[in-house]
């Protein structure tokens, strides 16, 4: 009995982990290349969820509306990212880091209220796509099929992402920019478009994660802040800018959250930040990041 319970907690932690990885990977990517912690990443995620809901509502009563809706949401957010980066953000690149951070915060404020204006404050949710509306039994515990799907998709994206980083020239440029972007500029790479590309990909991932989470979690104002905090923890644990670090950080955090809540029920609001503080004090560059200068 106990083993089964532990296993179900483990699975729940794993679902959270892969899902957080999807969100945090975009955050980590932007930090690694643009050297900015994008506070608005959580807002993009939230908007992805809202747009997915809206698309499903428009396409109803179509049964399998979820898939096009999710894709639409991801693309819409990617477009939003494109506009934001090309027309606003790039003019702040030579300004102080603080101003870049404040810019992303301004987006949080503006877009967060925009979401309230468009969709109100009531909780919304999206039905699971019928083809995945069931559960399977694994070692005696019930695992919703949709969760399994997210886990698989997340892992596929992780591997795909890694392959792109390692094997393609775009990936090489991204890795080079993460190490030394001035040099890269000096070598003639169009760093401007690289930044735009990275920001757009990150936005796409945020929007996609938001869409994918809409059947599992309620869509509600404030989910942007909740997720950005968790994404921070994940990238801090793993190491800002490190790809596998983010993955590892997500796995660890997923389990910490899953089991931590059992031990100490009032765990979550305190633990998240206590964990962040401990890592930053003891090992600020995280598990797989590069030691700070």
């Amino acid at each position, binding site marked *: 009995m106990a083993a089964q319970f532990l296993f179900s907690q483990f699975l729940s932690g794993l679902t959270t982990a892969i899902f957080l990885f999807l969100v945090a990977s975009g955050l980590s990517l932007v930090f690694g290349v643009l050297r900015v912690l994008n506070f608005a990443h959580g807002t993009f995620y939230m908007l992805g969820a809202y747009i997915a809901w809206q698309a499903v509502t428009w396409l109803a009563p179509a049964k399998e509306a979820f898939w096009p809706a999710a894709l639409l949401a991801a693309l819409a957010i990617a477009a939003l990212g494109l506009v934001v980066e090309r027309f606003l953000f790039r003019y*702040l690149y030579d300004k102080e880091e603080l101003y870049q951070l404040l810019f992303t915060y*301004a987006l949080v*404020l*503006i877009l967060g209220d925009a979401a309230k*204006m468009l969709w109100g404050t009531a909780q919304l949710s999206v039905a699971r796509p019928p083809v995945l509306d069931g559960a399977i039994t694994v070692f005696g515990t019930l695992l919703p099929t949709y969760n399994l799907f997210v886990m698989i998709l997340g892992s596929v994206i992780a591997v795909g992402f890694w392959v792109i980083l390692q094997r393609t020239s775009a990936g090489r440029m991204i890795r080079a920019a993460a190490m030394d972007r001035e040099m890269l500029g000096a070598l003639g790479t169009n760093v401007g478009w690289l930044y735009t590309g990275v920001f757009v990909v990150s936005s796409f991932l945020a929007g996609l994660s938001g869409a994918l989470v809409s059947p599992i979690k309620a869509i509600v104002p404030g989910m942007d802040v909740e997720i950005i905090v968790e994404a921070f923890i994940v990238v801090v644990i793993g190491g800002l800018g490190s790809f596998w670090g983010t993955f590892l950080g997500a796995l660890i955090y997923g389990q910490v959250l899953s089991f931590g809540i059992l031990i100490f029920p009032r765990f979550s609001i*305190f633990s998240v*930040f206590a964990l*962040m503080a401990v890592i*930053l004090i003891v090992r600020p560059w995280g598990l797989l990041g590069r030691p*700070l200068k």
Partner: protein
Amino acid sequence: MSKRIPWTLIIFLAALTIPWLGSRYYTFLSTQIVILSLFAVSYNLLLGSTGLVSFGHAAYFGLGSYACGLLMKELSIPFPIALLAGGLMGAAFAAVAGYFCVRLTKIYFSMLTLAFAQIMWAICFQWNEVTGGDQGVSGIPYPELGWMSSIPGLDGFRIGDYFYIMTLAICIVCIWILQRITNSPFGRLLTTIRENPERASFIGVNVHAYELAAFVIAGGFAGISGALFGIFNRGVFADFMFWPKSAEVLIMTILGGMNHFWGPVVGTIMMVVLNQQITSYTEYWPMVLGIILLVLLFVFPGGLVGAVDAGLKRVTGRAGGRGDA
């Protein structure tokens, strides 16, 4: 900034006239502005002088409120002592957090300040027995202000006005102290840290020690402003310490201009007045704030005071230097 105009005195006298306008609303607003100005000026010791971007300054504000409020309400400690306790509380916790934070730089520093602040918030939010949990502490008593009516020229005001005058006096003294600190040799060495921490250490500045000192001083004055705010608000609540409050003080400071001593005060006035006006029309204050922030970032990066200063420089034709020798 080396003009000999006694701005502190001028601003004090100007602010002092508010009760004579006879409006409860103006007095209420002005009390809020004065208290939050102290909060913002304390923050600028870190941001403008030392170059430290803290995302958790509201924690020390909140802790000051709790300390002062609880002492006055539960233990009937007299106001002056409770106020001091609020400042000490802010300073003490700033010392603990600061010790760890100053060992980091840039975004890591900022995130650790946020983490500490949120931990402190979480504790206050959940510790029902002491802090009242999410209900907070209400019914904080006003200090005994009757004696003020016997001061010549000051009789016949409402209690809110007496509180305002006292708060103004306390805050202007604190701001004046912060001004002297900013312009002192200590403050000058803080600017070297802001400009070039590596070079600062090579001219003999123990960077961590100075940053920690700045952090503690800022935390102490934040605690005092928080203590005053708790009384003003007649209650202390955990969301005094919640991260959006830290974001607010950062924005107030930059809005006015972090490169000038009085910038944060100007920013506070703008923020409080705008907030009051706009929230009476719409619930979408965050969006308005975000737009203001965008305008600030793209058009007036030096804040309002910075913009005025730059404009003046263009008009008077000074460039590239200050008449400092």
